[in-house]
């Protein structure tokens, strides 16, 4: 059976019109999540399921961050209990390798998480880099973004101004970069503690326990939490990322309730 005959111009119009309408719909959002790794996607999925309009900004072409692979480029990821319950919830197959330690296929886990976020109604802008925050009366009220390639081309041919997207809440899920929080630090609004010591263990719990509102309008999740609070660095166990994303979603809901 042959493919339907379509005009090249229709293909272009389909892409442009749908992208434009999606972008237009998300110039104002309930939540913008900066970073499409496991914590950001988890937060996005939970918030979208609550009926909020959620936009994820991802600087790479691909979503999922480091969730595709475990250590040493080996594509098995580990999750410590009780975060295995989240794997079950997302329909990600896993096995208990040792008491409390669950292992899953990275590609399967990551694609399921992305799928869960998309199915929940999350809009995604990939190849889009976070540039700055929108501040209104001292509160984070959105993000300024640009195309990712702009930052990697010579300045004389990339004098491209960014655009602003408003949001009632912004989530920093940018990993160790903690890019959103850093912008507040540049303005003297807060001070990041930087990486913590590597000579102590047990940082997974601490990451989840410190997840929450960092500044009016801003919630921090995932490994960005470790940079913000100077928590001990940890290896690639992803349970804390999923749990932190979930905790972050709860913090956003609480923050929005207060400001409603």
């Amino acid at each position: 059976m042959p493919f339907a005959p379509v005009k090249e111009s229709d293909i272009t119009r389909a892409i442009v019109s749908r992208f434009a309408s999606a972008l237009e719909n998300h110039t104002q959002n309930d939540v913008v999540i900066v970073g499409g790794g496991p914590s950001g996607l988890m937060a996005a999925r939970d918030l979208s399921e609550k009926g909020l309009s959620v936009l994820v900004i991802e600087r790479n072409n691909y979503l999922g961050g480091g969730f595709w692979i475990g250590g040493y480029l080996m594509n098995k990821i580990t999750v410590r209990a009780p975060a295995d319950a989240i794997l079950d919830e997302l329909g990600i197959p896993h096995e208990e390798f040792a008491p409390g330690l669950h292992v899953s296929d990275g590609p399967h886990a990551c694609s399921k998480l992305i799928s869960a976020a998309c199915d929940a109604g999350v809009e995604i802008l990939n190849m889009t880099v976070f540039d700055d925050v929108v501040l209104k009366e001292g509160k984070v009220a959105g993000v300024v973004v640009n195309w990712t390639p702009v930052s990697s081309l010579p300045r004389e041919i990339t004098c491209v101004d960014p655009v602003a997207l408003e949001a009632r809440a912004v989530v920093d899920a940018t990993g160790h970069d903690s890019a959103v929080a850093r912008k507040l630090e540049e303005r003297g609004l807060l001070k990041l503690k930087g990486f913590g010591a590597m000579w102590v263990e047990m940082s997974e719990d601490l990451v989840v326990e410190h997840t929450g509102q960092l500044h009016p309008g801003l919630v921090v999740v995932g490994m960005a939490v470790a940079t913000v609070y100077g928590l001990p660095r940890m290896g690639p166990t992803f349970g804390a990322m999923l749990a932190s994303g979930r905790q972050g979603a709860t913090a956003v809901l609480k923050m929005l309730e207060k400001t409603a």
Partner: protein
Amino acid sequence: MNASDGHDWDLLNSAIVSLYDEPAHPGFELAKVAEYLATKVGIRVLLKGRLLQSRGSSGLKRSARMLASSRIVDPSRRAPNEPTRGELEYEERQLTLGYVTPGIIYDGLAVQRLMLEYLDENQRWREHVHVAFTSRLLATYDHLDSRYHLRTIVCGYPSVVSLSGLVEAPARKPAFYLARRQYLQIGLAPAIDEPYADDHLAYGDLRTTDVAVGYAMQALSYAILGYPFCQDPGCRLYDAHRQIEMLKAQLEPPEYCETHMPFLAEHRRAKQKGEPHEHSLQ
């Protein structure tokens, strides 16, 4: 005061020890420490439980601020931490729940000062020894090398024994650190403890209470004798800087050196008979 050895034996005869801990530190049983002190030293022990208990909203906020300010983010910097809102909320939550997640390092002397405020005012006298076991990681600043060092015990009033410090402060075998660095570089943090499990104390280790007992004795020694440590690596009062030394001093016989063993035996015997303690330490 016994003029021959400079120690106040009346103090030991009349001393009371209050023991405190924080809930949910796996592998640690405060009652066993109390039982040991009562039988080994023949001293009266009060089991107090949790020390940093909430004291109303303003007390809670003040304590949370003190704890958050005493966090050590950079071991080479001796300056109070400027607490963020998140840190203050975290400390408030932990104080309210009475639960401590190890991993954050606090200035041991600041935590000790805070704990002093929580001691019952009617029990703050010299013969009343207070020993608090905490899951918090404690460090004190050393002017010799201008940096903080993790501690197992911070002696004073009260003396504070860090249960997570027992895991993290004494150095492990060099091979462990080498393996951990290699594992972290390739992104494989979990399960590296296994080959070295017998060489160091771990979180939730069933040996935790037995090891902690020796640190309670060090706290008692500090309060009664004026010094916490013994130079003999085979004595439970030994200030171990390596895990292997700590486990040997705390878990392998004999329990005490030839100086401290007879001292304890004599005190216990005298106490049971209601006689004055006449044994002297040289």
